């Protein structure tokens, strides 16, 4: 105890001894900037900073990297809420409810809640790190493929509560997410599945192209629709930042549960914040109050949908550091950079890290990282709140001007993840899908949950089967997790019953002929997927057949339901005109993507913005030229200078 206290004080001294605070502030600023800018993630920033580690003092290097990754997740929430575009791949779950709140004029309220929940999550994650790290080696030694498989299946069961506003569509959306996750080389024999001989699809669909396509493109295209209005998301009306922060306090139980989800699940290698945010989001759906009307439906602006994922994401950071420090096994992508930095500085993480300095350990360094995260999160939160006024101005810019800017960031983010222009094709398809789902009010969050959990379920279930046969389902931990899954299913059913009277609003709005067409298209996708999976044999064929089979079955069921509804409703007269407007919006999206693919991001987005601003938005030449030049310059700085991508189009 005395040793721990001495180490905590020594750790704080290390962080506060100049020039370390300077590196901490630099990390906070870098993390804030990459977090706020859509598409630029913490991993890109850490890769960029890693060479600097070679020349810095060890403590300065670790503080720089830790502060950057700690703040970026928090800052990403601001963009997700105000612009509807995930600032980070780990801030995608917050878009659904956070941006809906912003569109209702509650941007400050939602951002206040997100920042305070993030702060609490970060503190919780660090508390878990300090408390759990001594036991980590023995606990993690009992976590094998069966336990991870059961955990992933529990996550899949969360599709039920996540889908309670429209069960068939929600479950279909989840099944489609699982099916999309099977694209690429199978994890066992490296056999190509649904790659259509495209090398770029061999590693599957990237998380950012999928998240940006499903959420951000629809949001950007909505800006064309509302370009005659003044401003998209508003922050001026509605409740204040302080109200949002108080809301997080009022939901302390939810923050605690979601932080636990983040820290505990995040401590398992391979399960990062991209997964925990969605599990927390799904859990938050089961925790919603039932006395606030239809605004509290999932994706309609429920504050629980903001607080849950915000706290889980930052808590994951602490959880992921547990195996990194205790075992030298990186808990996630960002902690793998920290591990690289340790190695570069000649420090071997492992149980010895936890011994006091007098016994040859590095406990003061562990505490220094904890302090660094706490201080960086606090400064990041203040920075976020302080800059909200400025960042929020973006949201009050006319949508006509904002549309090309947002779409440019979406394109940059898509290419940035894997430096692959082929991912623009993925964005094109999924952007169209996301827009159609948004327009027809099909739930999108289950698709993301299915997509992020799919690989984990497939890999771990089949590994468990290879290693243990079916006896793995009888392991004690697996049985406990199965009980949790059943409890979640029952909770979802109870919530669905309680909401039974209000859900039809969403259903009736979507019960149209377009729904019939959409269901038929999805059924065709299911059939095509099943037919293609017939050419696969053995283990690689199992999961695709289940996923596409579920996609087909649920889309056919929805087809029947929509057909019945459509028969009861008179066809709307303006449907043709409305349809052509949708096509025009999608046309602009295709135009931007095609130009980026043909001419590269810098020239392509500049050309697209120029044409759009003049022809469609009818801006003056002066504004068009100025905005186009700014966009081209900004894209050049981000793409060529910072991300160091070879920005060459087909030409």
């Amino acid at each position, binding site marked *: 105890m005395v040793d721990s206290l001495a180490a905590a004080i020594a750790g704080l001294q290390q962080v506060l001894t100049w020039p370390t605070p300077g590196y901490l502030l630099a990390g906070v600023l870098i993390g804030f900037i990459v977090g706020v800018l859509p598409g630029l993630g913490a991993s890109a920033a850490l*890769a960029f900073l890693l060479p600097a580690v070679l020349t810095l003092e060890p403590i300065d290097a670790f503080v720089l990297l830790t502060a950057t990754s700690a703040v970026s997740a928090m800052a990403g929430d601001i963009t997700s809420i105000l612009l509807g575009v995930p600032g980070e791949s780990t801030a995608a779950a917050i878009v659904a409810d956070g941006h809906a709140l912003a569109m209702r004029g509650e941007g400050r309220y939602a951002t206040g809640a997100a920042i305070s929940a993030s702060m609490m999550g970060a503190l919780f994650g660090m508390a878990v790190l300090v408390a759990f790290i001594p036991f980590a080696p023995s606990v993690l030694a009992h976590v*094998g493929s069966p336990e991870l498989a059961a955990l992933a299946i529990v996550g899949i069961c969360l599709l039920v509560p996540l889908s309670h506003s429209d069960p068939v569509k929600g479950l279909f959306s989840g099944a489609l997410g699982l099916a999309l996750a099977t694209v690429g080389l199978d994890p066992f024999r490296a056999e190509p599945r649904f790659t259509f001989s495209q090398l770029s699809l061999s590693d599957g669909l990237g998380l950012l192209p999928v998240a940006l396509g499903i959420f951000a493109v629809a949001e950007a295209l909505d800006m064309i629709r509302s370009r005659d209005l003044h401003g998209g998301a508003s922050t001026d009306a509605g409740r204040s930042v302080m109200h949002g922060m108080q809301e997080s306090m009022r939901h302390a139980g939810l923050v605690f549960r979601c932080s636990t989800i983040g820290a505990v699940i995040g401590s398992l*290698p391979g399960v990062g914040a991209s997964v925990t945010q969605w599990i927390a989001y799904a859990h938050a759906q089961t925790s919603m109050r039932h006395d606030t009307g239809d605004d509290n439906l999932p994706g309609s602006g429920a504050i629980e949908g903001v607080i849950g994922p915000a706290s889980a994401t930052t808590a994951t950071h602490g959880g992921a550091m547990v195996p990194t420090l205790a*075992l030298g096994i990186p808990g996630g992508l960002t902690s793998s950079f920290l591990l690289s930095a340790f190695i570069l500085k000649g420090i*071997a993480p492992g149980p010895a890290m936890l011994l006091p300095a007098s016994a040859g350990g590095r406990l003061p360094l562990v505490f220094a990282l904890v302090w660094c995260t706490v201080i960086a999160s606090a400064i990041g939160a203040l920075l976020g709140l302080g800059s909200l006024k400025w960042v929020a101005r973006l949201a009050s810019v006319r949508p006509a001007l904002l549309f090309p800017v947002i779409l440019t960031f979406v394109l940059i983010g898509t290419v940035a993840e894997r430096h692959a222009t082929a991912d623009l094709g993925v964005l094109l398809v999924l952007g169209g899908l996301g827009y159609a789902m948004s327009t027809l009010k099909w739930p999108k969050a289950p698709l993301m949950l299915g997509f992020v959990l799919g690989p984990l379920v497939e890999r771990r279930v089949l590994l468990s089967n290879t290693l243990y046969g079916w006896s793995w389902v009888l392991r004690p931990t697996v049985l406990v997790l199965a009980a949790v899954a059943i409890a979640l299913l029952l909770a979802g059913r109870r919530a669905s019953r309680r909401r039974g009277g209000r859900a039809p609003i969403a259903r009736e709005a979507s019960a149209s002929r377009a729904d019939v067409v959409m269901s038929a298209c999805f059924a065709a996708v299911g059939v095509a997927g099943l037919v293609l999976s017939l050419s696969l044999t053995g283990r690689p064929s199992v999961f695709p057949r289940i996923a596409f089979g579920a996609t087909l079955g649920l889309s056919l069921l929805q087809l029947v339901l929509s057909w019945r509804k459509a028969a009861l409703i008179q066809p709307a007269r303006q449907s043709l005109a409305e349809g052509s407007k949708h096509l025009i919006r999608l046309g602009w999206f295709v135009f931007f993507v095609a130009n980026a693919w043909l001419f590269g991001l810098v020239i392509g987005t500049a050309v697209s913005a120029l044409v759009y601003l003049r022809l469609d938005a009818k801006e003056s030449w002066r504004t068009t030229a100025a905005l186009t030049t700014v966009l081209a310059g*900004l894209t050049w700085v981000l793409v060529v200078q910072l991300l160091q991508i070879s920005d060459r189009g087909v030409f």
Partner: protein
Amino acid sequence: MLVRRAIVPLAIALAVLACAVACHSAEDGASSTTFSGSQLRIIVGFRAGGPYDLHARVLAKYLGSYLPGHPDVIVENMPGAAGAIAVRHLETMTKADGLTIGQFSHTSAADLVASNVLDAFHILGSPGPPAQIVLFSDRSGITTIGAWRHAPKPPRFASSGPSAPAYVAPLVAAAALGLPIQMVSGYANGADIRMAIDAGEIDGVSVSLDAYHTSFQSADLHAVLRFSAAPIPGIDVPDAMSIAGDARARELLETGVYMMAPLVRFYVVPRGTPAARVALLREALEKTWVDPHFLADAQAAGLAIDPVSAAALEQTVATLGARPATLRDLRAILEPH
């Protein structure tokens, strides 16, 4: 209004900056004997933060100083398909001007020969073969080759998939030396494998010496076999080649593991690159790999450096191509089940 007022001066400043950069870039590639004012790009086919990336980033820090004109050297990650996306990019999208070099990785001799690497690229050299060693967990009870040979049931080995060195080396060794083995593929990465060992769900793994020092060195893991003619300090285990019983076993090991070792990490430029630049790049790499500062950084990062020249690598590839029967055997041994 405020936004518009800010946009116009910013736009002018950026336009001036863009013109300056365009003029600067026009000088690029003006001469094939100097890299002055240029930027050299290393394309890595694996994600940032991993061992391949780490190697390229340490190299990037020093390589420029050994090239005439001292260009900036940057690393671009292009992960996917076990490095194949980076290969295709270098083959089809890159100008053959010596300003973009690729870090390639091959583990299967048969696939390397089939890829016709020498037709599309000039090999520049390899920083050296990271020797592979076979480790067994405490729980497996296997501490010697004899115990492995007489194990009551085939020990389970972990790998991420057929293109991983952890898949190739143990399967070839088992076939050549008559050892029992069950290969379990499907683990995402080294961290996953390490966790599986700790949880007792697999018995053994083959890792590079780099990975051993950074992630697998533990009192619970015992080295049993090495794939390296040279002794490894601190790891007193037999060399696989020394216990191979006959000529066929030795040829399988040599072709499938030993000759492939330096090709797990090597550098190339596209064919068509001016010969003068190829020579300058080869010379610069050779000088960098013996630079004491580079070696100190590499050692700190746990990276083994034992350079192999371009000529030696090209000879290796040619020799591999002249062994079609052995390549057929290797393909059968490595066929996923």
